[in-house]
């Protein structure tokens, strides 16, 4: 297991490095990055000042070195709009996004996994069709449109739920549903196909040959094996959710990092945009690594390997 983990950590580090290079290079794509790094409406003198400050006239690799240096020190720039370090802003908004993602993930697993299992075991015809429709719509409808429709229905017409902000469970319901539907569909699909694979496996056949009751075959032998790919996907999906939530957070004015990114674009606050993208990307890499490690712990084939 140790070798497995070391290897994974190595890959993660490489990914982080490549990520920083990618962001770095793209910003310099535009020809004059000073325009981005300066507040809107700045003068020519300001532009020159920025150029010297960031060393934009120095060779590329020098710039990159300084870039990495500031990253490692935790300096991800200052927001023009909020006039605070972006890292501070990001960290203050992160819990809200995590809350939303957790709620959406809970929804997607609670709905997705059982429906997937039922669809695989083919217990009820009606349930199977309803599940298919649910999945198809979930995978096709844009989450922000679902959010808008929910607002129209539950806030404007029925007046039951608040249309924006956070602070209570009532505020959480609609955004979590809008965000989670797509993932509920994805998890349902994967659970179903994973379960079908496992049900057709030789060890399930042997379990039946042993004369075990069907309920035990499914609950013990099939379930645990089928769940592994689903949980792996769910782990990664958690960070993806945080990212995709940009639009949902914007629709519901939910104070998370998605909305922060939107503000960065709306107010042309480039340091915020750049820092958010870097941090989001880093989060994906780190969570992927954690999921891989978790995998190592669950699957005895990896845990007990040298």
């Amino acid at each position: 297991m140790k070798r497995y983990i070391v290897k994974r950590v190595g890959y993660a580090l490489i990914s982080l490095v490549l990520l920083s290079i990618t962001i770095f290079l793209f910003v310099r794509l535009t020809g004059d990055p000073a325009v981005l790094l300066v507040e809107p409406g700045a003068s020519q003198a300001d532009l020159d000042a920025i150029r010297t400050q960031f060393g934009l006239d120095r060779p590329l690799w020098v710039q990159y070195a300084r870039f990495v240096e500031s990253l490692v020190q935790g300096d991800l720039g200052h927001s023009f709009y909020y006039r605070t370090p972006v890292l501070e802003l990001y960290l203050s908004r992160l819990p809200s996004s995590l809350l939303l993602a957790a709620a959406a993930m809970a929804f997607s697993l609670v709905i997705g996994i059982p429906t997937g299992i039922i669809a695989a075991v083919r217990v009820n015809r009606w349930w199977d069709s309803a599940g298919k429709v649910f999945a198809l719509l979930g995978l096709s409808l844009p989450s922000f449109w679902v959010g808008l429709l929910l607002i129209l229905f539950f806030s404007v017409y029925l007046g039951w739920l608040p249309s924006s902000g956070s602070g209570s469970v009532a505020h959480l319901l609609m955004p979590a549903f809008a965000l989670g539907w797509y993932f509920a569909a994805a998890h349902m699909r994967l659970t179903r196909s994973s379960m079908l694979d496992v049900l057709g496996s030789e060890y399930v056949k042997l379990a039946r040959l042993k004369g075990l009751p069907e309920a035990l075959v499914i609950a013990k032998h099939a379930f645990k094996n089928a769940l592994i790919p689903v949980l792996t996907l769910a782990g990664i999906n958690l960070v993806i959710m945080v990212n995709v939530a940009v639009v949902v957070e914007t629709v519901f004015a939910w104070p998370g990092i998605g909305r922060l990114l939107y503000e960065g674009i709306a107010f042309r606050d480039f340091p915020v945009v750049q820092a958010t993208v870097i941090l989001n990307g880093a989060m994906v890499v780190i969570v992927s690594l954690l999921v891989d490690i978790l995998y190592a712990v669950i699957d005895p084939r990896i845990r007990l390997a040298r």
Partner: protein
Amino acid sequence: MNGSRSATLTVTWRLAALRSEGFPTIPIAILGLLVFVALFANVLAPDDPEVGRLGDRFRPPVWQQGGSEAHLLGTDHLGRDVLSRLIFGARVSLVVGFTAVMVAGVLGTALGILSGYLGGWVDQVIMRVTDTWLALPALTFAIFLAAVVGPSEMNIVIILGAVYWTRYARVIRGEVLSLKERDFVRLAIVAGCSKWTIMKRHILPNVLNSAIVLGTLMLGVVVVTEAALSFLGVGVPPPKPAWGLMLADGKKGLMAGYWWLTVLPGCCIMLMVLSANLLGDWLRVKLDPQLRQL
């Protein structure tokens, strides 16, 4: 072994596979309708999609009180005709979506073939880049790029292509790796064909199946991403009528109950994406059962 013969076989087999039951008539009809509308928007739209009369703002659709026959589906916050904007929006969505899918597809397939067939350091480099780009969620990456280069229709196509080619590269590379072991490729190598010839005449026709299936599935994804970008304000810039932009505008009237500005553009997006997804699912099952893991 003649590469063009294997290509012909693949195409014939593909056509034959299509001509059987379970044919998704409705999705294809809807997509066809959308293409038709997009092509003939100038003729079909009753009004100018970009100019509105301020005295005519927020008119509801014709069947509601306050609606008028001049604006069958109502008007938006600038008095522009919703129906015309939806029709021209189809053109925008299809052009952007289709072009982006082509860009991503061509780039991704080419790199996937190179990566899979040549192996070695080419493979390593391409794969590392792919993995990193895949690590960045598409929407975030697209927003970042749009913030850097500025939004315009052309830029969006390039950005979407740049963000999504990695999906193709991964899948195509996998296919190429298994194709490399097949006999007709080995025979070609033994016969002395150059690497480029093999890649062009033997490998490429055989990965086209996967590329097509992936393309149909990606169309839905790309359209939704473009809508999201336009909604956030970094996609197709106003006053062009993109459906995502209409949703952003529609939000302004949402709390006042102007439902048609939100529901109608979203329905259009939904129709296009649903049809593309259904078509893609059907193609995937028909053309290659091995692709079921896509």
